[in-house]
């Protein structure tokens, strides 16, 4: 599944980025690297953008960008803490 489908509080492992354009490269440079854990912290009141935690910092991305990130959700209960 893709990053935008995660529920708030859910954590996942990035499996791959399926685009290679400038925006995807920038996501990579911001830490969206295969093998990293990523947490969907919350979604904005109107559904997007998303507040995401990766590599111990927070950033905000739109659904458009999140669609490029493929993830494998971890079997942790919603709201659990991850490093």
């Amino acid at each position, binding site marked *: 599944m893709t990053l935008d489908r995660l529920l708030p509080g859910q954590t996942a492992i990035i499996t791959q*980025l399926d685009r*290679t354009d*400038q*925006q*995807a*490269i*920038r*996501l*990579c*440079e*911001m*830490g969206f*690297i*295969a093998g990293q854990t990523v947490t969907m*912290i*919350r979604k*904005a*009141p*109107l*559904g*997007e*953008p998303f*507040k995401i935690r990766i*590599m*111990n*910092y*927070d*950033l*905000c*991305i*739109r659904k*458009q*960008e999140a669609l490029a990130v493929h993830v494998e959700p971890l079997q942790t209960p919603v709201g659990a*803490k991850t*490093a």
Partner: protein
Amino acid sequence: MNVLTAKEKLPAKSLSDRPLVVLAGNPNTGKTTVFNALCGTRQKVGNFPGVTVEKKSGSLELSKGSVELVDLPGLYSLNPLSPDEQVATEGIMGRVLGMREPNLTLFVLDATNIKRNLYLLSQVCDVNRPTLVVLTMTDLLEKEGIVLHRDQLEAAIGLPVVALDGRNTAEVKKLKVAIEAALENPPRPRVQVQLPNPVEQALEKVHAFNPALTRLEALQLLLGEQTLEAYPIAMVEAESQRRQLESELPFKSLDLAQIRYDWAQTVALQSEERILKGKTLSQKIDRLLLHRFWGLIFFVAIMFVVFQSIYTWAVPFMDWIDAGFSWLSDRASLALADTPLLQSVVVDGMIAGVGSVIIFLPQIIILFLFVAFLEDSGYLARAAFLMDKLLGWTGLNGRAFIPMLSSFACAVPGIMAARVMPDPKARMATILVSPLMSCSARLPIYILIISAFIEPHYGPIWAAVALFGMHALGLFLALPIAFLLNRKVLKTPEMPFILEMPPYRMPKAFNVFFRAFEAGKKFTLRAGTVIFAFSILIWALSYFPRPASVAESVRQQAAAQATPIEEADLEQMVAGAYLEQSYLGRMGKTIQPVFAPLGFDWKITVGILGAFPAREVILSTLGIIYQIGETDETDQNLKTRMAQETWPDGRPVFTPLVAVVLMIFFALCSQCMSTLITVQKELNSWKWAGFLFSYMTALAYVVSLFVYQGGRLLGWG
């Protein structure tokens, strides 16, 4: 001044011979704090040549002399996406036009977020220039449950690492010593990231064609990320190497990023320990401030405070400025009483013109205090997060709300605040729609017209509706116009909206105040130059020609009347008569047919023409035309006089419909010289300032025409 002669005169050490040190690093790492700690107030803000990217440079005093320090804009990667990042990249590489190659790069590294910072450092090391690492945010480590071993970090990256907490003067001294040592004995970075063999070999071949290429440039050529016109042969070689590499080992930018992050991960494992803690304070605050209900309430409350304070806190300061200019103009009037022409050009032209601009200074400073505080505290990113969806469809993004909202108080600081937007086209679109927001200078006109023509006819509720409607109108039109500008005119590309949300931090007072001071200084300098010239032009149009016969005939007519007229009233009549036959008055009469379909007579037309430099001037122009002297929006005389005004056939000029149309015209028309000059400076283009003027004025005309003719068809007014 000619640089050569300057050098001849200063054989010892001219300023341009000083060593150059650049500050580089990720955004939100406390770079500005490092810069301010090193330079204090010995700094100036300008632009990098040819682009509207802010360049902060300062003088750093070391024991052996002074050094020039340039604060490059923050960046995430040397593969730039925005003009800010482009300039920063070129600054690190020493390729900025008119700027020397740096002797030393100070790399600012946020101790609480080293992995992502190290990614950029690995790129900077591939530029192979002397680099010194400054570790910031060390005071927050404990709170975030991180233990960072500075010496292990130093060993892992092979560069000197100096910690700096901006408040600690001992550490500032230590950093200065380290900079001095690094200038004397430059620390060369090593290649941090070894790439797979076929890639290294291909790099070597590209490099062989031009040894001047840095490793980073060769990599960018090989991956096709950049083209470098300066190295045509190397570019051809890179192209063929890339094709060969593709068959052997596909290696893309994403793979390179992965390898760089692997390195960053290794360094992080060697030098930091993270203790798992519960939710950080920032996360707890965000649970409230980004909440889908309470977050929005808080946002509205914050914006209300900002807006309200620009409206109200500025008033006493504006009154002082107003009083100061009145005093100045009284003194000048007295001193120049013998030479009426000179008196008028100084008092009505220069002092009145510059005064009408400087009056905005308090609003600018107050807004920038808020912007700097909100940005440095981390809230600006949160507000952008909340607002993004609302503005996204127009091609703008969440960051545009600050300039747009501030413009409700005054478009000038609003346009300057558009610097928070990194994408140049989205920023341009924001700048071009912000002046549609109903600024505080429009308020006196609304109040005059509503209290004279709406409230007496329709009651206080409709008066409030009219006032609210005037404020909603600009916003209502701005969003679709932004959409059209982005999609049709500027062809703004779909930009990724990737925005870091830094932890909440208490802003440093010096940083906040200095930014407000700089914004004010910049604006004042502008008022002193272009605006000054325009003021004199408009004055001249309303003053000349000035035959003495006009005054004489007015006085003769007055003398012929049965009831004697007071001298003050007589002077007003003379002023009105002069204005009527001045170039401006004649223009008003000539152009009036253009405004006739909107229901405006020649007097309103003169008022509109005279108000192009500053819309609120219409009050004083109407005062002169209707011969009652200095007025403000609460003036009963002016209201009565306007209500009595008739067409030659006896119909009243100001029907409620004409009153509404006049307000709409003022709501949408571009009548502010300060705004146009600010746009010209910010976009570095007269063309776009002209475009802004034309489209707003056309919009005002068309909408007013539509409302007037539509209203008449419906039998209103």
